[in-house]
């Protein structure tokens, strides 16, 4: 079987759905593919998202939100903690989502805007004419399907293939991937009002552990380990230890695993007739691992650029340059900065981390944003943070 459209989007996560919705609203004939039978499941995410940035893009429905938090608590290896308020602690806290509901709702919005959603449909490769991509070959419920389209969006996540089929190198080095495990834990000691971050090389080598509340004493409790510091099965093994130590009576109701790109800006996210969005474009924040918002932002940009490029009759890499320029100007700058912090952070010993967080004990950081806090940290620990001095302005 074969079909034709203006834009085919591979992957119905938040990035793909926002691309499809934006393009369909602009009048494009859009097909949105999801290889799984169900959109949003299984979850591979801690589900934390910044409230303000989310609300700028979509109007959140109450059923998407599992919990709303007041702020973040960060724990040093020695147990010292600092508290940051929600509006200051950056983009990763505010709401804890129910991704199974959220992802499906965004796909629904794309469908309502006119996109055709096809589930259990897996892209197998790019169709090419004279070497230029012109759609995807797919398998739909075990049957072959060809979808011709001048533009293909790769929103196919951490395991992305679309970019690689188009000649874009998206392979991640072990130093640029966190391997993560997460349990949905129910326990009376869970803090329903704050997201918690636990630092320490014995807890999560060159990563961190987290507890994101989901209401009623439930939380996503997980951790990430840098690929270079991992062994087979390490993330799950360390998480079991962490949960046992922190929530000895906790009940585990769900298990989630996944890889989180922390690569910073990759060299290219476009080629002739192809744009990459979200995890597929490695647009995840390298320090926090958060990627929902940047995927959605990039999706909106890709949808807009797709419609412009088709109208202008130029879908070549040059014709899609606006996408590359726009996301790098906005999301990209943040990724680069965050990558530098990550590269520094992964080298820190537990003593370094204790010193840093300990130095903030006597400071009032409740009203500070991340940049303000960094400035204070630098003033108190100039020697330790000397390498980061160019970032403190």
């Amino acid at each position, binding site marked *: 079987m074969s079909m034709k459209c203006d834009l085919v989007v591979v992957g119905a996560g938040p990035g793909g759905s926002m691309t499809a919705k934006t393009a369909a609203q602009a009048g494009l004939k859009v097909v949105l593919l999801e290889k*799984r039978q169900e959109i949003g499941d299984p979850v591979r995410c801690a589900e934390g998202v910044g409230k303000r940035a989310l609300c700028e893009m979509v109007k959140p429905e109450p059923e998407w939100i599992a919990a709303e938090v007041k702020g973040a608590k960060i724990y040093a290896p020695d147990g010292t903690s600092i508290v940051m308020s929600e509006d200051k602690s950056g983009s990763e806290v505010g709401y804890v989502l129910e991704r199974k509901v959220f992802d499906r709702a965004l796909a629904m919005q794309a469908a309502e805007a006119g996109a055709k959603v096809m589930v259990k449909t897996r892209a197998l490769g790019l169709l090419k004419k004279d070497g230029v991509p012109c759609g995807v070959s797919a398998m739909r419920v075990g049957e072959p399907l060809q979808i011709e389209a001048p533009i293909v969006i790769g929103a196919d*996540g951490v*395991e992305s293939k679309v970019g690689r089929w188009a000649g874009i190198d*998206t*392979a*991640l080095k072990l130093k640029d991937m966190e*391997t993560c495990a997460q349990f949905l834990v129910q326990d009376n000691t869970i803090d329903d009002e704050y997201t918690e971050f636990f630092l320490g090389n014995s807890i999560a080598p060159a990563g961190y552990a987290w507890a994101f509340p989901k209401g009623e004493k439930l939380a996503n409790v997980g951790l990430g380990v840098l690929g270079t510091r*991992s062994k087979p099965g390490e*993330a799950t093994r360390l998480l079991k230890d962490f949960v046992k130590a922190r929530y000895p009576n906790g009940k585990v109701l769900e298990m989630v*695993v996944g890889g989180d790109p922390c690569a910073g800006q990759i060299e290219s996210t476009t080629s002739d007739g192809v744009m990459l969005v979200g995890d597929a474009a490695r647009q995840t924040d390298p320090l926090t691992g958060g990627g929902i918002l940047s995927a959605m932002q990039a999706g909106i940009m890709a949808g807009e650029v797709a419609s412009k490029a088709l109208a202008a009759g130029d879908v070549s890499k040059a014709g899609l340059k606006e996408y590359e320029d726009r996301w790098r100007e906005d999301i990209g700058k943040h990724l680069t900065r965050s990558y530098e912090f990550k590269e520094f952070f992964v080298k820190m010993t537990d003593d370094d981390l204790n010193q840093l967080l300990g130095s903030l004990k006597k400071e009032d950081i409740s009203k500070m944003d991340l940049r303000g806090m960094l400035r204070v940290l630098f003033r108190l620990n100039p020697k330790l943070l000397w390498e980061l001095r160019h970032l403190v302005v």
Partner: protein
Amino acid sequence: MLTVNRYKCCYCGACVGVCPTCALELVETFIEVSPDCKECGICTKICPVGALEVKA
């Protein structure tokens, strides 16, 4: 050769993302290994559940 223990695998796709030869594919709920696999073992290190193993 590279083996995938499908009883352990949680089909997250982390291995696919780090494969330097594009030899792995996450098909819904299982990992496919193509003949392009060079048995470098990078994927075994990233696997959060230890489902991958290079066997002699």
